[in-house]
């Protein structure tokens, strides 16, 4: 576990990183934007936000972030990818040649719910949460657990598709909790990162 003052990072290459920071702020969790490898120093966990995964991959490679991110994960830093961020965490991206970090035992299928006019919101039953969570799906990927993936748990399903997956202290969601006013998943992630909330 990296030491530090109990701060979380939000990858700020592109996308809705401000919404994640606003959610953390409402929880009283300090956060920092991460654009370059040095920004990872001392963080307990990192959120990879929604946005365009191809854009983020491009910028990650151009600024040498991929290996430092893997090292961050190996040293115990918690990770949570939402939508595009989940694609970045996946081991593979189905149906196309797209690089990813390969930090979770899942495959991502991009835009698997259709184009923007098919985007939708729907309440989700999440393991460990008493009431349904607002699921906001915007050009979302489907996430498929890979055979043989260790310690992988599906925390929420939507019509027999996993939409929230945990593996150790890593989380992937196909939907956007940061666009809702519901802070429960941000609180859960902060606890995975070992922060008191």
């Amino acid at each position, binding site marked *: 576990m990296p030491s530090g003052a109990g701060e979380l990072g939000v990858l700020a290459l592109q996308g809705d990183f401000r919404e994640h920071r606003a959610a953390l702020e409402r929880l009283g969790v300090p956060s920092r934007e991460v*654009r370059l490898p040095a920004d990872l120093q001392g963080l307990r966990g990192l959120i990879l936000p929604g946005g365009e995964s191809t854009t983020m991959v491009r910028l990650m490679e151009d600024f040498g972030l991929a290996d430092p991110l893997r090292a961050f994960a190996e040293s115990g830093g918690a990770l949570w990818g939402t939508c595009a961020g989940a694609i970045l965490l996946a081991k593979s991206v189905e149906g196309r040649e797209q690089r990813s970090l390969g930090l979770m035992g899942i495959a991502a299928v991009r835009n698997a719910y259709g184009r923007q006019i098919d985007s939708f919101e729907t309440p989700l039953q999440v393991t460990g949460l008493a009431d349904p969570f607002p699921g906001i799906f915007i050009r979302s990927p489907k996430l498929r657990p890979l055979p043989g993936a260790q310690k992988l748990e599906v925390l929420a399903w939507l019509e027999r598709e996993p939409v929230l997956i945990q593996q150790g202290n890593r989380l992937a969601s196909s939907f956007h909790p940061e666009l809702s006013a519901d802070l429960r998943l941000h609180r859960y992630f902060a606890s995975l990162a070992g922060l008191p909330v």
Partner: protein
Amino acid sequence: MSETATLRIKTGFAEMFKGGVIMDVVTPEQARIAEAAGAAGVMALERVPADIRKQGGVARMSDPKMVKGIIAAVSIPVMAKARIGHTAEAQILQALGVDFVDESEVLTPADDNFHIDKHAFQVPFVCGARNLGEALRRIGEGASMIRTKGEAGTGNVVEAVRHARAVLGEIRKLQAMPKEELMSAARDLAAPYDLVCWVHQYGRLPVVNFAAGGVATPADAALMMQLGLDGVFVGSGIFKSGNPEKRARAIVKAVTHYQDPQVLAEVSEDLGEPMVGINIDTLPDEERLAVRGW
């Protein structure tokens, strides 16, 4: 219990473009170049604004075949332009599956009094604005994203700066006003009162606000981000330049690292010929696109 095309789904989608660059493309090949360079989206159109300016004539929605070709070529979101007030063009674009419709002054307006009722659509809309009143009227009609108009196809960023400063300055003014002055402010802005109150309370537009119209270099893009906009549209600036691929990648990097002059210096180096610009002061009024919109 599943709902589509809610306000949150439309405006939330617009949030996903933040910190990103949306690039004008006229062929599937250009769309692929834009995607590989890191574009957060592409705008499919038949002619870039610089050519519309040069060739004149009526500029319309693109051929559906071309739009479909671009949709098939890339995995990133595809936007396309409809003429101001042209409800049928927008319906066609929605039927084709475009992810966003730009009701755009760059095309020849189809209606010189009214804009499209954008609430009536499943697909979200982006509209241009020169000032806060115009931005709030478009949002009142259902726009999920606002962009400066700038002066498209000129490669000259001055109008985009002017529009950004106008919108952001008027927002600051509203914020500082006591509540009892807001109704008169709404009257003067010709903007819906409830939206004026919203801006007063939160100090920003209720939707994302992008730069467009004249951005030609990484430094231009960084300038617009520093002014406080959420992301950048680049039209003629990329594919009318000497090395589109390199310039596209440089602008993408500049939008992410807009606060880091070291990175901006590196990415601005050796980009080849920029598009030839137009001095807007010498542009006759009838050739100004930004005045279109009511």
